[in-house]
């Protein structure tokens, strides 16, 4: 359940909320539709679950729709995801046909709402072909890409580009992800909701219960990686790092992953991770349901260090969550992790399991560094990666796209 603006003002300050209200006044009553591929699981669904109520509280008329597909559709979109992040995998024509048919069918279901909307935000490739099926659209259509597209597999990007280039604008998490398109490419890093189940303060009692539930020893250090069981998150690399480091400093590694309804590869990768862990009692592999937000929150709070050993990453909201809980993060030097983990300040950036092992050993030896980095980490997120900044940028883009793309827009 998202908080209200008044609750957020206690965290970010009243002036920040006043600023949002002023900006939103210029968009009062605007009909806004967001479309993505899942209501639960993954960062996009989390963002939308707070973004929609807050836009409504600010006087906009916002709603959230989800594209529904069958197995071949999700196979296709998972392949898009992998290819866009650099895997060279051609996608068979029958899957592409399924993708286009699913988009057309869903767009027809939602057509009147989409065509009447003042703003339509389409998230990621799954519903990207909607635009083609809405020729009577009246508002501005914006494609929001949450994925690392810095080195896409070109044939797949070329296929997707035919859909996204006709949007009025696109939004990317980082400049290095933005592909050249003929419309403005806005840069907006995502954010977290400090009042969501995943980030809200928890009692010690609740933390103790989670330790007991998963049979975790509270007296030995804990390193936690939270992410889907996805090869780009390198859970096997995290296990390798654990093995390299724990002979020097005993600790427990928790790999906690939620599933998402749009990820058909999750089970396979989960098995690979279990095989790599080889029943090591110090490696806890937890497959959590997609709505286990409080448990994820608790696991991050009981951690001494947060690990995010990704080899590709869109932004890495689990990194933001870890930083917000006052923990240093050891993260793969990739994508949005580079924006959040400031070497030696909020954590360490690493390239290899060896690098991760080295930094785990270093931090577990220097508790004062864990505390110092943790304090800086929390403030860094407060300043830069909370939803109020994100919301402001969405409102700014909406104001900008309706007033063409000139450098200076004065709203009277």
């Amino acid at each position, binding site marked *: 359940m998202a908080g209200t603006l008044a609750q957020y003002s206690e965290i970010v300050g009243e*002036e920040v909320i006043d600023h949002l209200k002023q900006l939103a006044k210029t968009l009062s009553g605007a009909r806004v539709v967001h479309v993505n591929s899942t209501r639960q699981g993954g960062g996009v669904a989390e963002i939308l679950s707070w973004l929609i109520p807050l836009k409504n509280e600010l006087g906009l008329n916002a709603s959230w729709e989800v594209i529904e597909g069958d197995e071949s559709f999700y196979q296709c979109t998972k392949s898009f995801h992998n290819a866009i992040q650099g895997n060279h995998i051609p996608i068979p024509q029958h899957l592409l046909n399924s993708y286009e048919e699913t988009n057309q069918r869903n767009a027809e279901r939602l057509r009147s709402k989409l065509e009447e909307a003042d703003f339509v935000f389409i998230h990621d490739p799954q519903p990207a072909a909607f635009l083609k099926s809405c020729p009577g659209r009246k508002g501005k259509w914006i494609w929001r890409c949450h994925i690392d597209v810095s080195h896409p597999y070109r044939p797949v990007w070329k296929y997707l580009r035919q859909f996204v280039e006709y949007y009025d604008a696109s939004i990317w998490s980082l400049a290095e992800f933005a592909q050249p398109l003929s419309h403005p*490419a806005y840069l907006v890093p995502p954010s977290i909701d400090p009042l969501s189940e995943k980030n809200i303060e928890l009692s010690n009692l609740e933390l103790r219960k989670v330790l007991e539930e998963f049979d975790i020893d509270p007296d030995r250090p804990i390193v936690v990686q939270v992410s889907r069981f996805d090869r780009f998150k390198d859970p096997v690399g995290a296990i390798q790092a654990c093995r390299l480091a724990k002979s020097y400093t005993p600790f427990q590694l928790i790999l906690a992953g939620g599933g998402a309804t749009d990820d058909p590869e999750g089970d396979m990768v989960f098995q690979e991770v279990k095989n790599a862990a080889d029943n090591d009692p110090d490696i806890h592999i937890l497959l959590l349901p997609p709505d286990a937000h409080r448990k994820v929150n608790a696991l991050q709070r009981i951690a001494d260090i947060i690990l995010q050993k990704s080899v590709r990453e869109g932004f890495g909201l689990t990194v933001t969550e870890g930083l917000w809980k006052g923990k240093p993060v050891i993260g793969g030097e990739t994508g949005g992790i580079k924006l959040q983990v400031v070497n030696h300040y909020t954590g360490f950036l690493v390239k290899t399991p060896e690098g991760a092992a080295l930094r785990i050993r270093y931090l577990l030896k220097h508790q004062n560094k864990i505390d110092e980095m943790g304090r800086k980490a929390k403030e*860094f997120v407060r300043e830069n990666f909370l939803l109020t900044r994100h919301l402001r940028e969405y409102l700014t883009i909406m104001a900008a796209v309706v007033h063409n793309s000139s450098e200076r827009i*004065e709203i009277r």
Partner: protein
Amino acid sequence: MPEPFAVKDCALIAIGTGERAQNLRELRDHLMTTHPGCIYYHFWGGLLRPRFDDPEYQNDFAAWAWRGLHDIRLAERLAIIDPVEFPDIESLRKEILEVIEERLEESEMVPWARQGYLFHFIRSQIVVFDTDVRIERPEQLIGLLRRMSLGSIFYHYIDARRRSAGKRDDFSEWLMGFGGEYVKLVQCLSNIDPYFSTLAELRQEIQRAFLNFTATGG
């Protein structure tokens, strides 16, 4: 008496241009033609976007020279460029190019950055909106400044220099409309160096200038 001071607010949004540089020569080539908004953003945008503590180098070109190219000499020379001293973006562009050309001439090899550390040219759009707050007398601003959003501070103190004929901040421009009454306050405001402050610090400094002025009776 001048017109009441109209308090405005703004939000800056970044736009990727797709232009990128992997070495110093590419940076120079793009700099010669890139949108003036890019130069503005890479000097001033840091005030309104994520960054950690006090950055070692105040503008993005200097920061890249150090973090991307590992060329500390170039980083230092670029970092010392103070955009406040230049009357417009084009003269600032010329100065950056001058520094880079000099470094290219000195270097036996063109410094380059590895993949993942390219320089990405970014420009920005600024959306300005009216808060409907109007100030009749300068003394009224003192109470208001404390609660003024950082967007308003950016708009009236930083962005104003690009807009106003006198290349001054909006507060000074308005105060000058009262004749010689506030000349000392205008002087104090012009002595504030906005380049090495965060917007929150800048807000405090402006507020302090107003408070000192009223405390000393002008």
